């Protein structure tokens, strides 16, 4: 099962490599990983998407907690949460495709952020599956380049991950 894990860790050199190293050393898989400093610059927030049985994911969270620089870990699947991923996608846009792609972008509530006479670059935000759906809808041959951030997640309502 797909789990989305959120964690706070000390914003220090090497902290990220400890997390990545843990996953490779113990044979856990990482679907995606995104990390950036929080409003408190001494802390980084990381969102990890992993696939595994409940037992494996329980071990993953325990092992993450064991890392000295990790301050807090939660499995967002334990409650209601929201997740979003950002994708930039460059597509070939010529002739009649230009209108078609523009319409599609509107339907998916994306925006075109760069235009040339042959291409559009589209910014799209949503759940990972929404981004997948967009790519499925656009003609495969039209896609020139994609870049995705990996999912970021946050608990709903009063569910807050804080020190």
């Amino acid at each position, binding site marked *: 099962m797909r789990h989305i894990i959120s964690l706070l860790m*000390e914003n220090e050199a*090497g902290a990220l*490599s400890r997390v990545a190293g843990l996953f490779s050393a113990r044979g856990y898989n990482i679907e995606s990983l995104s990390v950036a400093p929080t409003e408190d610059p001494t802390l980084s927030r990381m969102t990890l998407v992993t696939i595994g049985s409940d037992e494996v994911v*329980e*071990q993953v969270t325990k092992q993450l*907690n064991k890392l*000295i*620089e*990790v301050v807090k870990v939660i499995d967002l699947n334990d409650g209601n949460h929201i997740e979003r991923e950002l994708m930039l996608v460059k597509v070939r846009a010529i002739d009649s495709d230009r209108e078609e792609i523009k319409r599609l972008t509107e339907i998916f509530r994306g925006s075109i952020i760069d235009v040339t006479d042959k291409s559009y670059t589209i910014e799209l935000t949503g759940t990972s599956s929404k981004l997948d759906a967009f790519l499925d809808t656009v003609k495969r041959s039209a896609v020139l380049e994609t870049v995705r951030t990996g999912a970021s997640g946050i608990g709903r309502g009063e569910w807050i991950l804080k020190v």
Partner: protein
Amino acid sequence: MSVELTGAEITIRCLQEEGVQCIFGYPGGAVLFIYDELFKQDKVRHILVRHEQAALHAADGYARSSNNVGVALVTSGPGLTNAVTGIATAYMDSIPLVIISGQVPTSAIGLDAFQEVDTVGITRPCVKHNFLVKDIKDLAETIKKAFYIASTGRPGPVLVDIPKDISQQKTQFIYPDKVVMRSYNPVVKGHSRQIKKAAELILSAKRPMIYAGGGVILSNAAAQLTELTQMLDFPCTTTLMGLGGYPATDKQSLGMLGMHGTYEANMAMQYCDVLVAVGARFDDRVIGNPKHFSNENRKIIHIDIDPSSISKRVKVDVPIVGDVLDVLKELIKTLKTEKTKPDQPAIKDWWKQIDLWRERDCLKFDRDSKIIKPQMVIERLYHITKGDAFITSDVGQHQMWAAQFYKFDKPRRWINSGGLGTMGFGMPAAMGVQLANPKGKVACITGEASIQMCIQELSTCKQYKLPLKIVNLNNRYMGMVRQWQEFFHGNRYAESYMDALPDFVKLAESYGHVGMKIERPEDIDDALKEAFKLKDRLVFMDFITDQTENVFPMVPGGKGLSEMILV
């Protein structure tokens, strides 16, 4: 105006503040300033080893036998890579160590400088934590943190990498009294509701079993484990790492369990209805195949300081996260207030069953053999030292026989590499044990293959007059490899024969030690007695033993605990 100290001075001052009396190391370019400061003081004694692996094992043996943090000092590059085996050994057995390594100057890091390796990167998977000190102002606090992290929670090795320029720069020295880390707050106290649940389950047991591991030793809870076991009249088995946590000569002890555990311990483990696991982690060498283990219904209480050890290989019913010592004290207190008492008739029947298993006499061996049986050597060693020696071992058959035949009644007397299984551990570890216990009798039980992996330390032993007694069980084979090849690889002894052995007697003598070669069973006692009479000499006893002897019982890899091969 306050005086400023160099990084090197600060490093040594920190060790002094921590009360470190003895460190093990080997100098080199990146640590020259630190060695210079060591030279100028006499509070911290430095033991010069002959290879960095030995520095780590010695610091490790020092820590295991004394309950202090062991300290090693190595230089950058090859100094550090040589130390990695020792660091990983300590990590697998949760031994508190602080390793100080030199690094190339900060301006050279990343430029493939002479003797540069990515120390933090290389050691990351085999330390509890590591630091690269990039600012002299952080140095003292970092070392304080290193000692704190190494010795609290589930202990382990912590490395501090100090670039050469940092050891040369100056700053004001302030050693913090304590450290507070928001990201590291190990749980000590067990949850009282869980302890209550455990007590109720314990009192409902009809076929109880206590299974104790290295956590009992590490948390100094042998007395509490003994009290608990005896107040309940439960059987108790210990893992390889837990030997000495419960007195082996007591009637409630079933000895060691696991791959080479006793028949009674393994059977009781498999068929108990309530299992109390104390500071143990259900590893592959202990329970064999976890699926086979789970075939039998039993309730499991698991006490461990590391939450990730709980429900890792075996699902447990009552997990208690906390320091073993603390939890056992609470558990004993709770049990005393419970109104229900243990089900004595049921437990009596259970003991009857256990006694039947004991009658199998699973550790029997040919006592009339004309060739020296390795088990006999250890049994005689046990008697001649009155069970009161510190025993270190290397890895292989001799290690298992030592664990089976030396009856440890006290904790911190059995020093071996259980998790990583590091050949070459025994002699350097014994050096650390001897330095921590100058009056103690220290014997290293080894084999002709293992001992050669750190044989150079005979020189260190000479320099510091360490009167170790080396019991070399020489069967001219990597015995455990040979045993597996006999059982599982059709007697094809690929590369397991130890050819071209040195004359160990002459070798020992060339280092200024006493060497003995013992070839007949009737000479065992005299040799051992004479060796221990030579109180201030290292004695290397080369016992020529039966080449075909195997370790029994044996649970083959992938099999269940009750599927032992018996003698």
